[in-house]
């Protein structure tokens, strides 16, 4: 990984304290994916994916529908455990530990916050939605919980809308609000890795921008995997981007290279230019 140290990330103008700090943290890989294969009932959905996700970067994944992006996230989180149909082979190393053979999947999942495209507000109060993960960690003190709930809802750009009705059922919020509630819930895990799967699908453009700004700030603290259908969103946020197509990882590179046409596979620039997909 020589190029890793040499290449300077395309830095977004906001939220970066010092590039020196970033370089040291970038030396380590948070996630290392080796020969990952995913199939559903024998039908292949993702083939031979190997890639590294570095600590404190935003790693974008783009690709048309059916390219295996969501399946990829599920495999990292070990959600295949709950779907007998889903077979996963290969290795995913988290801080060097192979998650595929891990017994304590609960510790893994609590370190990884995920936001899936269909928002799910749990049928409990907004407050309890966000306080659930801290409670699972054993935090009982009301003041601590209050602080976490407010911080996470604020970061998910939802606090102003719900601060006066924290007791309403999370499942009765509007679609876009539930999506942000899901983001707040993921943040309440105080995750080391945040995986977002098309988070802006149900969220209006203005709120999307607010969340994007927050993601840029979070980059200093956590590692973010961002699956998005909006190519421009990947360009705005991601340090590096992978392009998935029909179950293959076609391209991985610095986002700026991908968008400046500096690619190894013609299909990548075709997709980015909107010529198919």
């Amino acid at each position: 990984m020589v190029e890793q140290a040499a290449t300077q990330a395309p830095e977004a103008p906001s939220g970066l304290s010092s590039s020196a700090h970033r370089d040291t943290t970038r030396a380590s890989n948070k996630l290392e994916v080796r020969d990952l294969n995913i199939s559903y009932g024998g039908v292949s959905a993702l083939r031979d994916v190997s890639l590294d996700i570095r600590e404190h970067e935003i790693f974008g994944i783009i690709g048309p529908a059916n390219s295996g992006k969501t399946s990829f996230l599920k495999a990292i989180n070990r959600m295949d455990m709950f779907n007998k149909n889903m077979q996963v082979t290969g290795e995913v190393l988290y801080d060097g530990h192979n998650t595929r053979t891990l017994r304590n999947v609960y510790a893994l999942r609590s370190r990884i916050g995920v936001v899936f495209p269909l928002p799910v507000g749990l049928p409990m109060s907004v407050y309890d939605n966000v306080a659930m993960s801290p409670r699972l960690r054993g935090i009982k003190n009301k003041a601590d919980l209050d602080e976490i709930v407010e911080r996470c809802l604020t970061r998910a750009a939802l606090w102003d809308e719900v601060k006066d009705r924290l007791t309403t059922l999370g499942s009765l919020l509007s679609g876009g609000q539930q999506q942000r509630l899901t983001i707040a819930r993921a943040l309440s895990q105080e995750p080391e890795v945040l995986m977002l799967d098309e988070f802006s699908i149900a969220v209006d453009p203005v709120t999307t921008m607010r969340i994007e700004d927050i993601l840029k700030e979070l980059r200093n603290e956590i590692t973010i995997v961002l699956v998005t259908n909006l190519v421009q969103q990947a360009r705005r946020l991601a340090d590096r981007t992978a392009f998935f197509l029909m179950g293959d990882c076609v391209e991985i590179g610095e986002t700026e290279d991908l968008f400046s046409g500096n690619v190894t596979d013609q299909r990548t620039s075709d997709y980015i230019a909107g010529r198919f997909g």
Partner: protein
Amino acid sequence: MADSMFKATQQNVSDEHRDFLVQLLFFGMTVLLIIPVIIILCMLMWKGGPAISWEFLFSEPTNGMTAGGIFPALVGTVWLVTVALLVSVPLGVAAALYLSEYAPDNWLTRFINLAIINLAGVPSIVHALFGVGAFVLFFEFGTSILAASLTLAIMTLPVVIVATRESLQAVPLAFREACWNMGATRWQTIRRVVLPNAVSGILTGVILEVSRTTGETAPIMFTGAAFFLPFLPESVFDQTMALSLHLFVVATQVPNVPEHLPYGVALVLIGMVLLMNALSIGLRMYLRGQKKW
């Protein structure tokens, strides 16, 4: 233009006609169905109504059960139903939780599910014989409330399991996945999300179950219910009278019973069942009013 666009064609008219006739037919059948129910209730009120009094409810039968009240039978039924519930609800809910939340989808699970469905279809007299063999004789509980209640519990278990499993399955999978994604174990997920949202359905099922248990006669007849025993039971190892069996006895086994007496017993029995059902319907309506997603 707009008028002619929505003008009914010949086809429209005849479709509508047929729709109306079908509706009428179904309505007629529904009415036919409830007529017997209404007749039964009216008969009971008319013939049994005069028998009902505080005295009737709270005194013992006298004169070889041709006079007096039904208090020991009333108390006995409450004992039987309560003990049966204490056994069948925890067991049934645990089994349903296993089947719905933990069991892998394999032949064993499918076999268990099939067994439960079949168990629900076993005639109550067969359960009674099983109760005699297992609880009265093998476990040596003798004819007692315990043996009778256990027999009732076994008999009602399938219904508790099915009702519970259905209300568990009504909680969307997405809620569970959201919890699992946060690192919650299956049990944490069940306790914090699944059970709180299924408890209404479980309760409704349980109450309906109570109403069924109340009226059962065969399963308790040989296992713990006595023909005539004018004392209140003191423990689960005592025998007891029960309303359902008492009704059978005064209606068919004892000579010279005044006509209003069996009707009075039947009215009390039906009253208890209707009360339970009303409670269950009320609960369901209340909970439906608070839709959570």
